[in-house]
């Protein structure tokens, strides 16, 4: 059983690293569009890894199904909200960052 725990730990830590990368992106990137990019990428990949790790620990298949549903919902919501924020920003005339 040790292998499952180790694998789960590795997956969770990898997910956490992606979230860390997303947060760093949020702080460091110059304008709203790049920050959105950083956040959405970190969100779905990081969350995907975490869900995989938790699925290993899950008792029944129903819980695995629920975890998958959560991940899909976050993907759907994250992508559309990012689009809405970006189009809102464009409508307000926030220009893209150029070096």
């Amino acid at each position, binding site marked *: 059983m040790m292998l499952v725990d180790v694998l789960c730990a590795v997956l969770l830590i990898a997910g956490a690293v992606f979230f860390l990368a997303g947060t760093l992106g949020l702080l460091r990137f110059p304008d709203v569009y790049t920050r959105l990019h950083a956040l959405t990428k970190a969100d779905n990949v990081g969350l995907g890894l975490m869900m995989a790790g938790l699925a290993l620990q899950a008792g029944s298949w129903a819980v695995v199904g629920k975890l998958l549903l959560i991940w899909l*919902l976050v993907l759907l*919501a994250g992508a*559309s909200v990012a689009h*809405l924020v970006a*189009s809102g920003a464009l409508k*307000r005339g*926030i220009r893209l960052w150029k070096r």
Partner: protein
Amino acid sequence: MEALTLLAWMFDGLLGLGLLWLAWRALTCPDLFRAIVLFIAFGLLMALAWVRLDAPDVALAEAAIGAGLTGALLMAALAKLHPTETNDNLSVQAEISRPKGRLLQWLPVVALLLVSAGLGYVVLSLPPYVTGLSAEVAANLKTSGVDNPVTAVLLNFRGYDTLLEMVVLLLALLGVWSLGGTELHRDTAPGIVLDTLARVLVPLLILVAAYLLWVGGHAPGGAFQAGAVLGAAGVLLLLAGWRPRVGLMAWPLRLMLVAGPGAFVIIAALLYMIEGQLLEFPTAQAGILILVLETAATVSIGLTLAALFLGGRPRNDKGLT
């Protein structure tokens, strides 16, 4: 195990500091838009705190109503307060009113420090191990008709509180309508993305609300969490530009709004005739009666929260609103 408790302590400490920091930033941030976003983040951290304190029902309610719907109401109010077509970014500068003069500035701070020190001492003076009413709740759980203790307390043991509380929600809507609240104006047509998001999510949200309502009987969930999810579906629809047909506006809507408290009052009156005590559920039918009450409550809470978000009084042809 020592490392684990240390880790748990660190997490609690960080969460506590996070809560205090977010609340302080939300209250003293010059930009109102950012203050509301910080408040929503504060609501989500609060939901995390409820999970840490073994209160999953409260976490659901806080995330759905405390952070979600209250945040949506605040955002809608801010949008109506400062229509953002004019300035370029969303930030709404509202000057922080510092009290004038040194004494006036430090007096409240010192007074509040004393108050919190006193309250902190009082809280710490409470006995460390106490079970409160959990013994009585566990003893009567079997005859309450549900297995989830929180739903048992909410719907059966203290059902009278819940009746009054649903009337409070209805009363808030009545107050908003009697004020003739400002309509949520639609400046631009909703984009294709928001439209498809609404088309996909709303049926799923209604399904999740039904699931939460059903699962409330034996696991965290129940009428208020389900009603909040239904309210969120309503808010999403309203954001996507959907408005109820005018014909629907008159008494059908009002009937559904009153369904929750109305069902409670009718059942309370009937039970009084039969059992001789207000809101005393006969143990055999307690489960069914609670389910009926919860279903009616979910419908009216969902509709009321969506109508509160809409704000304005629904116009209908007869002019009698």
